């Protein structure tokens, strides 16, 4: 399956990935609307959280709005979503996202846009066995 692999040691905390993601999908530069999150840890290093395409949310969705495409990427069909947020609760990594005022959750679809821009090599889109 295709997923966004994170190499947190390389991250310098520039937050560029969050800008790229939110601009691409929400047309605004807003970390709350980014599918990848950069957190600063206590020891000064950075942690990256992003969907690993584990599919826990797929099973939880009551309307089958969440499906897996041929590449193994988990996608939400907005037209079917009834905004219950069950998927958000079910996500073991906390990476099915919501933003204040939004109804449909969103998540990383491994589009590679942020990985392309990351200046430190902390993100790479990879394929792994199912």
């Amino acid at each position, binding site marked *: 399956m295709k997923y966004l692999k994170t190499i947190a040691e390389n991250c310098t905390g520039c937050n560029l990935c969050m800008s790229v993601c939110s601009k691409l999908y929400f047309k605004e530069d807003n970390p709350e609307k980014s599918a990848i999150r950069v957190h600063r840890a206590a020891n000064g290093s950075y942690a990256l959280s992003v969907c690993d395409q584990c599919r826990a949310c797929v099973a*939880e*969705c*009551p*309307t089958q709005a969440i499906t897996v495409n041929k590449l193994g990427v988990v996608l939400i069909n907005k037209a079917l979503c009834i*905004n219950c*947020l069950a998927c*958000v*609760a079910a996500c073991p990594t906390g990476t099915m996202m919501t933003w204040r005022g939004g*109804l449909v959750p969103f998540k990383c679809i491994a589009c590679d846009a942020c990985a392309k821009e990351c200046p430190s090599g902390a993100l790479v889109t990879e394929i792994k066995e199912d």
Partner: protein
Amino acid sequence: MSANEKKYDIEKMRKAHKVLKEFSYELKPVVKGYNDRTLYINLATLEIREKPVPALMKKKFIGGKGYDLKLLWDAVSGDTRWDSPENEICIATGPIAGNTNYPGSGKSLVTTISPQTGIPIDSNVGGHFGPYLKFSGFDAMEIQGKADRDVLIYIDGNQGKVQIMEAPLEATDSHVVAEQLHEMFAANEREKQHLSVVSAGRGSEHAWIGCLNFSYWDKRRKLPRLKQAGRGGIGTVFRNKKIKAMVVKYSGLTGKSNNPVDMETLQKTGLKLHKEIISLDDKQCHMRTIGTAHLVEIMNDYDLLPTKNFRFGSHPDAKNLASWVWKDMFTQNVPDGCWFGCTMSCAHGIDNFELRTGPYKGHKVLVDGPEYETVGGCGSNPAIFDPKAVVEINFYCDTYGLDTISFGTLTGFIMDCYENGILNRERCGGLEMTWGNWEAALEMMHQIARGEGFGLIAGKGIKFMQEYFAKEYGADAQFLKDIGMHGKGLEQSEYQSKESLAQQGGYYLTNKGPQHDEAWLIFMDMVNNQIPTFEKKAEALHYFPMFRTWFGLMGLCKLPWNDVEPADNAKYPEPNKVPEHVQNYVDIYNAITGDKIDKEELIRQSERVYNFQRVFNLKMGHGKRVEDHPPYRAMGPVTVEEYESRAERYDKALKEKQNIDPTGKSTEEKIRLLRQYREAQYESLIDAVFKRRGWSKDGVPTVEHLKEIGMDLPEVIELVKKHL
């Protein structure tokens, strides 16, 4: 063409429809959880119209069961019987209903004048009908009058159209008609999830214990699932009105369909509960994997699982009905919620179950459940310990439109009468109604569905049978009274209350009859001894029924209140109330309606409706203290066998509670002494509870109390005055 279209000739059925009446209405969005209008349908005059909800009604009755009861009160007189044309079936939701992010927010409340009790019955049911009705534009609907041939009511919530049509060819049994109608009214596969069907079944045509099935489309199984408005014979009234089914269609559901004032609080609160359920359910109640059937072994261990018509509370074979048996049979298929966004997901199902009897013998069917009540009622109580037999009884009850609780409890009663020689093979029309004879129990049910034989008598319920057996067979009326597990005409649900005085009250000091949805106090009372005094019991018998009434005003499910608890719940005062969840309810109510209630006002809202329902019972010629007593079997041992099976317990009770030395006394004597004491205790309990509830000694809400809680409508005051 799908498999289903091949299975049924949908086109032929559709062609046979004849529209008798069509009504168009203006589509308007729901505002802050309300439409402020209801739908009125009269099947005799074919009148269909919308009614505005007056401000006073909204203020006093809030929604759900409150709206139902108000509409029903206005429709009937004290002389109305269940089969009078003016009797209504009312279906309502409530301001929170239809919300998609707080678990358990999709319930419909259904009321009618019950064939079993002669007073209003109310049932809380899942499935998608209620929420779709609401988003179609109506906070409630009432159906009055009787059709002269089988009709279908169709509500199209996207076009603003209601139709009554003749529907001669569709099936009557629920699992078939639900599938047919989902197929018929959906333009494509996807639309099936936007439909819900209400139906009963052939059993409802001949029994007084008829139930309604509310469907929702299971996208993964590609079949309709059925949830039951079980209690008190609503299905009987439905078929008496010659309604074959009702269908609602609504697409366009979102998390905002209620147009709440504060979406953020709503989402935050819902998400918090989702997370709690997903992380804690496996450690707590196992609702997501087993559902309420996880209770079977717990009840058996505590001697609370009814066996042999409530003689006993446990049985060595109960392990055959334990949760692990069901877990193996359930086809795990999360999400199994009866409304969108219910992560509690208690609604499990068994796929491809091959039937061994009846008209569908050999068919492989989807069975919803069984839930705990069905296992206790149709399993352990008649001593049927074959799980497959229980599933089959469950299936046929549902599809025939029969209440599994009443069916189970009355079957136990019949078997008890059989063992006691009141009944025999001949009187049962050839059926050998011995303990555990599931084939006979099922045959009796098929007789109900066919409207023949002993089934016709059995299907009328225990109260009817008590009178009938005494009159026809000269049976001892007092004995029948002692062992007939019903109150006000409604069969008791499936918990043994003998050792819990508070639960005896929880069952029999209810408005509609002994159903556990008002108060379940056995553990608080018997196991943990948290409410030892009459005052404490009375307080619990005030608070919990009032609190739980509120679910019915809102269109909420009870389970997500205390079948999952915050990890630190025990740390707070009064953990039995689950304080954090009570606050959640206050928060989501305010977030949707823009109101500003607190947890005290929440109880007040319920109190108004609860007292109104009590007065409604008075209006129907009931509702007094005399009808609030349990049969003795719900309070203690009726027979020598029962006493001796738990002799140590009862001897100890005589010594410790009554200061009586049991040595040397005959069992009969000990039974008599124990009974005297327990019956006196119950009278004291009634006194304490009535006082706490603001009722007279006779159980009539006083004028002062009605004024204090704000339920002093002129017609209510006028009525109670006649009885005070």
